[in-house]
């Protein structure tokens, strides 16, 4: 069995929630512990704000200061844990955990230093907190953030499905089939139309260069607002619904397997349109059912379209035909 090195193995589920929660609990424990230790030496109110030379210039009651700090830690900790613990894999959860560690440190350390500074002074007015200590706090915060980021581990990857498990469409030996469907976005077509109108207006009133740029980008947006998706004996093709010329083709020899699944475009693509991300690209005009092609390169090509299951089944059938030498 292959064992992954520490920090490269995805940390999942409740362990990840614990990783997100831990720094806030630790911060509360540190603040409460230090307060408990120095409580009898504290004056009320405390010096809680210091000028640039480190002299006290703001004061808060002990109870208000502690309640405020602990409340911030409780709220941030709960928010972080809920975000990381959601059922749907949260985007960039690793960064949220790292940021949580950093914030917990930059809240707990100044609070603790303030308590200690007050405890060492006989009067609140004479408490001092030099600026370099704050710089040290910031550095410690960054270090804590980095540690949290490492402990959180990489984002869990969805388990790749077993090859050959995807459904096929039963097709007779000499039979041919083609699946086609249009997918559109009314919002995007409105954007395209507005851009074209803006281009015309600029072209007439100002200059045709700027107007031309707007016209061209409006037309490019318009080209993907209503797209005909076709799966046939040549592979997958995307073409503007009004023009019979495909702007994107995926032939069979690039594809390992086709599947259909629910695509959530906000977390997977960060928006709609023709999107390219580091591990997947595709045309996503809405969330929901989508055709997903797993490419040999390890990337995914995604098109959100209704009835994607039929398209995937047909794609796999043709994929089998394209490589008849497969042993199974």
């Amino acid at each position: 069995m292959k064992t992954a090195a520490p920090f490269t193995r995805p940390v999942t589920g409740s362990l990840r929630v614990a990783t997100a929660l831990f720094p806030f609990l630790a911060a509360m424990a540190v603040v409460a512990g230090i307060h408990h230790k120095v409580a009898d030496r504290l004056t009320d109110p405390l010096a809680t704000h210091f000028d640039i030379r480190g002299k006290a210039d703001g004061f808060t009651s002990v109870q208000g200061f502690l309640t405020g700090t602990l409340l911030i830690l409780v709220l941030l900790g709960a928010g972080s844990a809920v975000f990381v613990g959601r059922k749907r894999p949260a985007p960039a959860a690793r960064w949220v955990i790292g940021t949580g560690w950093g914030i917990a440190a930059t809240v707990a350390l100044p609070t603790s230093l303030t308590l200690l500074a007050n405890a060492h002074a006989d009067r609140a007015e004479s408490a001092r907190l030099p600026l370099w200590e704050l710089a040290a706090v910031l550095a410690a915060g960054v270090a804590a953030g980095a540690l949290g980021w490492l402990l959180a581990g990489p984002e869990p990857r969805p388990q790749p499905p077993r090859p050959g498990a995807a459904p096929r469409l039963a097709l007779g030996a000499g039979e041919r089939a083609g699946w086609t469907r249009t997918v559109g976005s009314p919002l995007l077509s409105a954007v395209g139309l507005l851009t074209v109108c803006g281009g015309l207006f600029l072209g007439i009133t100002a200059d045709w260069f700027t107007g031309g740029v707007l016209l061209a980008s409006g037309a490019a947006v318009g080209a993907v607002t209503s797209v005909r998706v076709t799966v046939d004996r040549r592979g997958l093709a995307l073409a503007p619904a009004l023009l019979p010329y495909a702007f994107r083709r995926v032939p069979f020899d690039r594809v390992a397997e086709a599947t259909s699944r629910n695509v959530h475009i906000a977390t997977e693509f960060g928006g709609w349109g023709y999107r390219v991300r580091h591990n997947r690209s595709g045309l996503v005009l809405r969330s929901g059912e989508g055709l997903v092609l797993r490419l040999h390169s390890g990337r995914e090509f995604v098109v959100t379209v209704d009835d994607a299951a039929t398209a995937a089944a047909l794609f796999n059938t043709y994929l089998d035909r394209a490589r008849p030498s497969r042993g199974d």
Partner: protein
Amino acid sequence: MLFRVDPSSAVALGDQIAAAVRGAIADGSLHAGERLPAGRELAASLGVNVHTVLRGYQRLKEEGLIELRRGRGAVVTDAVSPGRARLGEAAERLIAEARRLGLSDDEIVGVVRTGLGLAGN
């Protein structure tokens, strides 16, 4: 929607394409106002002659299921309903059954006319 054609079948390819569209309307996967792929596109997709596709589209037009307009292509008519498409499928089955029995086209029309006459009385 899914088009499937089998060149080894006795049914003409154009009729197979028409049957695919009819079936898609009947089972609700193709709705009124939806555009069918252009004849040239579909022909390239299925590897058949463009005239074969257009023959199938012409047939659907005669049945009142689609409209063919220059420049707009083939669009499922607004008035179309799954029930109307199923009626076309029933007619297809009637004709196929009658041909199997060796009836001529006139005799098939006669069967329907007799049925209409009986229903009228």
